[in-house]
């Protein structure tokens, strides 16, 4: 069991990293597209009201000012608040927000577990009575993040399940996979809560398990803790098959599409890329398109 748990944990983490990397690469390999931005574009000086450089006479003579961090902080704020949902669908936000808080904190919780284990291996005691302040801090933050994550996540999962079932606007578009996801996340958070409340109130055992993963010295854990580890690992394997990657693609979507307003300047690298795209052959077969021509040839023809 000990070795099984360890191998399964290694596998689950490697699996999700590989799958998400594959998905990210698949997305980022897609070609440069025509501009399709939507205002406000966060880099623009007039972004507060949605203004753009096109408000300026002879805009191409102006230096292009970009504020890349503004976009990053905007999205970070959205992650932490889910503001659009708060403003537009408060009852949905009531469950969606704790659900997301559950996810964010469970990531933080595992990160803290990892560092807790790392410090333990390095000889630092992680507890509320640790002689090292870092030990006390890690103990407290791990406990708080774990507890809040489990409670908020469980509340959000159950709430969203009920909301999807009861709201006709959502139900019509919900799939069995959506409901499975909610039940799955509910199981993840509830199992964590049970493990903490009934088996491992200081999370000492969980940290030992992590330390074992690092030192290849696998330790035995109680059944409730083992159940949580298995469910969480299964969840990690399940995640890449859902739309969960929107956590990351949201960044891509904003930076590469919605705010992507890079002008095509003569002699630029972008122009080179566009030239390559325009030299690709098309096979659309409507009567007004001659299949086999390049985009450039097609654009030069009038029929």
């Amino acid at each position, binding site marked *: 069991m000990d070795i099984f748990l360890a191998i399964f944990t290694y596998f689950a983490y490697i699996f999700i990293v590989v799958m998400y990397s594959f998905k990210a690469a698949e997305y980022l390999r897609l070609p440069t597209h*025509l501009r399709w931005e939507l205002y406000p574009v966060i880099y623009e000086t007039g972004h507060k009201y949605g203004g753009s450089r096109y408000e300026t006479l002879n805009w191409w003579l102006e230096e292009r000012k970009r504020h890349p961090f503004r976009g990053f902080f905007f999205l970070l704020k959205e992650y932490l608040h889910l503001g659009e949902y708060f403003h*537009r669908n408060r009852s949905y936000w009531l469950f969606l927000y704790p659900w997301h808080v559950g996810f964010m904190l469970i990531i933080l919780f595992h990160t803290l577990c990892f560092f807790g284990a790392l410090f333990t291996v390095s000889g630092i005691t992680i507890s509320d009575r640790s002689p090292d302040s870092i030990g006390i801090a890690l103990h407290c933050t791990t406990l708080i993040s774990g507890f809040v994550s489990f409670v908020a996540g469980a509340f959000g999962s159950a709430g969203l399940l009920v909301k999807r079932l009861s709201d006709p606007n959502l139900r019509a578009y919900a799939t069995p996979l959506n409901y499975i996801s909610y039940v799955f996340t509910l199981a993840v958070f509830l199992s964590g809560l049970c493990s903490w409340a009934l088996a491992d109130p200081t999370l000492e055992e969980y940290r030992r398990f992590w330390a074992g993963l690092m030192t290849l010295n696998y330790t035995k854990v109680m059944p409730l803790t083992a159940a949580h580890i298995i469910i969480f690992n299964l969840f990690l394997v399940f995640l890449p098959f859902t739309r969960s990657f929107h956590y990351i693609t949201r960044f891509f979507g904003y930076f590469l599409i919605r705010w992507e307003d890079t002008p095509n300047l003569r002699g630029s690298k972008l122009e080179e890329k566009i030239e390559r795209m325009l030299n690709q052959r098309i096979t659309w077969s409507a009567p007004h398109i001659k299949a086999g021509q390049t985009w450039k040839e097609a654009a030069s023809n009038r029929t």
Partner: protein
Amino acid sequence: MKIGDISKECGQLVTIQPSDLMPLPYPYDKVEKDRAMSALTADQKAQYEGSLDGVVGVGIPKPATKAEEEALVGKFLSGLTKLFEKENNWTFLQPVYHSLEYCVKCQICSDSCPAYVASGRKEIYRPTFRPEVLRRIIDKYVKKKNRVLLKLTGSDIELNWALVSRLAELAYRCTLCRKCAQVCPLGIDNGLISREIRKIFSQEMGIAPKELHEQGSIRQLEIGSSTGVNPKALANIIKFMEDDIEERIGRRIKIPVDKHGADLLLLHNAGEFMSWPENTEAFAVIFDAAGIDWTLSTEIAGYDAVNYGVWYDDVQLARISTRQAEVARGLGVKKINVGECGHAHKAMVVVADRVLTGDLNIPRESALPILRDIVVNNKVRLDPSRNNFPVTLHDPCNIVRLMGIVEPQREILRKICPQFREMEPHGVDNYCCGGGSGFAIMQSMNFPDWRSAVSGRMKLKQILDVFQDVITPETRKYVCAPCSNCKGQIRDLFNYYSVWDECGILYGGLAELIVNAMVDVKKPFIEWEWR
């Protein structure tokens, strides 16, 4: 209704009754004021596919045989496959992939869609409906997921001619205003999906509304303009404009034509020459007074800013923008300025930016900043008291939300219209006029009724709301719409509801208001009469 119902071979899927529609403010607050949309005649029903909502916009003739239907379904599927090929759809592959793969169907976008809300929330018009249909077809027929996965992802949908023909019409029930995309926290663009569906029909199947294709982009490339105006006719129109300007302002202006080396080539939507010549004349008066070095072109496609390709076909989009840039290159102008036409702004200045390379990449800009420069920097003498009537501004989606030109037109109006007032919401949060993405020019069968009663309803509500304190016809009011297609839609919308008679609201462009305020123009330039 369920999403899979779109495949049902059951006659008309949805019916729209006046009582279903979103209520309007006074004086249209009684349902009786809403006339029922005209139904298709028996002949039209027999001839054309109209089983979505009893409205025909695209006008697909009914296939004569089952084999013909199957061939069309096969074509649709091959087009759908090409949508995901880099060679065939590099133009929008990443955006379409993002929107189809990562929508979580939270429906937060639904209430931002004016057509969905105004229709009384008919499911088929919900912004997520079309993408969901497409997603299910892709899962089953392109990705060929197994039966268990199809059940799990709810993708079991039947692809048949009923679905394909309804989807063609449904792609033309979205104005591509992209307000749904603006509110999506994940950056999903359901408006784009409507456009991608249109592309499948146009680029693979040769199916598009005739007003956009045969009589639109094809005609523009062949004879010069989608209006049918050829270079010879244009010369006559310009002569007429010079005569008309002389009559209106008391002095003759020579409109510069094909002037080599001019600072700017002004591209108007040619619809202005035909329907609203006062707009093109106003530009001539302003530019002349301000001493701008400008020219019009009489070359094919060089005098019509429109680019309908931006609504339905990437190849046509590329052809028209290339042709327009070639004209500018031939004239040796320093830049291209786009007049009051929203989609031409977006197509020419923004979207075509990644089509035009080398010496075709000529600087392009909106005419609004130059108008702002003239007005705000007092390059013409203006008397705002001449515009002392209630004025509101309609924000064309393509100029504002899709391009970020928000303030120049407002700075002008604040300076020359003492009673300027904003409708709500406005700026980048505006609502579409209801005629976006080609609707304003689509006159097929009962489609104009639909765009007045449904897609334009939210705009009518906004206009009535902003003028509620002066709503009676005795007070003349002005909706400033700096876009030809928006003006076309507002004209039809106001006609449908007799808005001039009931409320005394006129619509028009921005340049006309500037000339109306010019001290050197003795007579009022705006004629308060219904067009």
